[in-house]
């Protein structure tokens, strides 16, 4: 079965946000909005303030890293216990704080990087062809709506043109 994909190019941010808002309000969930720069207002319309799950990667990595750093320093000292005068402890928290801190930061960042790659689905070489418009990394905003019927495509074409889309194309997509 084939469906229609509608690609709208906007030159104005407010028109694009109105278009995204209208699509979202209509209950369509299979759409992609692109922008040459991060826009919190656009994110707010689409995700309604829900925070990114990347934070869980970050926290897990940081906890893992901190534990690893402190354990590495502690267990390696316990493995070869040196007799230290004046009752100084083998496992010394102040002395190991630096290693623990650096390891926390390093693993927190590495986990954040993994979280970013996973959540953004990078490398994104397999994204749909409609997103490969060079203007979308320059000065235009794009809205790609997937899974439309013929009638819906016509209806949205008219509606988005009314909302200020400068260019609208409809392509056929074979979902099979």
């Amino acid at each position, binding site marked *: 079965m084939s469906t229609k994909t509608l690609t709208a190019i906007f030159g104005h941010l407010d028109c694009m946000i109105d278009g995204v808002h209208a699509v979202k309000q209509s209950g369509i969930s299979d759409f992609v909005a692109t922008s*040459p720069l991060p826009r919190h207002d656009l994110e707010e319309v689409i995700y309604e303030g829900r925070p990114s799950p990347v934070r869980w990667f970050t926290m897990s990595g940081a906890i893992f890293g901190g534990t690893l750093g402190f354990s590495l320093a502690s267990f390696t000292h316990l493995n070869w216990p040196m007799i230290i005068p004046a009752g100084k402890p083998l496992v010394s928290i102040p002395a190991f704080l*630096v290693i623990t801190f650096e390891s926390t930061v390093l693993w927190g960042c590495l986990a954040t990087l993994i979280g970013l790659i996973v959540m953004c689905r990078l*490398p994104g070489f397999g994204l749909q062809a409609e997103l490969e418009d060079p203007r979308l990394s320059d*000065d235009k905003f794009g809205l790609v709506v997937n899974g439309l019927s013929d009638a819906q495509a016509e209806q949205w074409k008219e509606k988005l043109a009314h909302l200020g889309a400068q260019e609208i194309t409809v392509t056929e997509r074979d979902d099979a």
Partner: protein
Amino acid sequence: MNGITYGAVTRDILRPLFKPSAAYLGLLGLSLAIMAWGGYCWYVQLVHGLGVAGYQPPVFWGVYITTFVFWIGIGHAGTLISAILFLFRSRWRTGVYRAAEAMTIFAVMTAGLFPAIHVGRAWNAYWLFPYPNQRELWQNFKSPLMWDVFAVSTYFSVSTIFFYIGLIPDLAAVRDKTSGLIKKMYTHMSLGWRGTDRQWRHYMAAYGFFAAFATPLVLSVHSVVSWDFAMSQTMGWHSTLFPPYFVGGAIFSGCAMVITLLLPLSKVFKWDEYINVWHFESLAKMCLLTGGILTYAYAIEHYVAWYSDNPYEWGIFVFRATGEDYAWVFYMMVFCNCIAPLIWWVKSMRRNLAVLFVVSIIINIGMWFERYNIIASSLAHQYDPASWVFYAPTWVEMGILIGSFGWFFTWFLLFIKVMPSVAVAEVKELLRPPLKSDEEAAA
């Protein structure tokens, strides 16, 4: 930046890419020649051993450790500007942070050479990294030198990740303006970035976390470097003042180096809209603040040495300022770091590009001498007068020092031709977005 469009930003910032002028090639050739000279000097040391350096007991830290600390210090401004000022939502960072981040990475790469050069047997430098020997004996994690390995390698890793993540949307913009093999290369480098809502959402969240991690890291790295000295029992080093003193100095020298690098860059590439006197003045103010901290630290370390009533501690500070061997180094440091930047208290002087450029170079010279003053004088003048010596660098050490600038500038020159030196997407964030409502109101 009134009246500039998103399209103009992309065009202006990407314009200098790929087309090397004769002057650029000349500069690159000069950098490569200086680097080759440094490489030759290192070769001489590898063949003949550390005897070609000016070391004599008890001075075994000299120009190499001085230069290591100098380059680590230079590497502080980039992540400070990109991370700390990002969290503070400072608007002037946008124009300068990309080049400053690149500078950070290349400076840390340069610094990273020096432990290997310093140990002499460079092929054994990997012993620094945490792994057990055949008897399952690990490095001593209570040693500040081990902390330093962790701090510098973490700083380099995190700064590189932060730099690359920031570049991804801009590499995608370059991809969309190129063709053929170059386009293919940038397609892979940008990881297929398309700026979708999903990508931006997670990108901005991750960017904030990177900035939050990098912020304490910036402050910790030079603190840890300072503990290489402060944790020892050497006079003039064993002080709790060292971490803030070193961090202040690092930011001071780093911001000065950003001015030195970006001022000619902005003029040559005609980027006045994106990097201009406002940015340089802000950097000069950062230098004034951190230079003030540094001057205070110089004064207070002398006061503490005197107030401690420890004749050895006070003796080293008197020696630094009055001894015939190193007094000129001390006064060079005071002039370059404490006196010369004072001119920037005059507004017209910190908005004068020639003054900015000259003073920024003076600061960098002064910051090298500061580290040399700390390291050489303390080691050459220890507790036992019978061990007092005069350490002076040899031509090999100076050759490697000069060569390190060639290495650094080669990387930086290559960077400005293959990557956008100003953040395209973030500069667009500073502009008022194109709005239909504005056009209707104007009509």
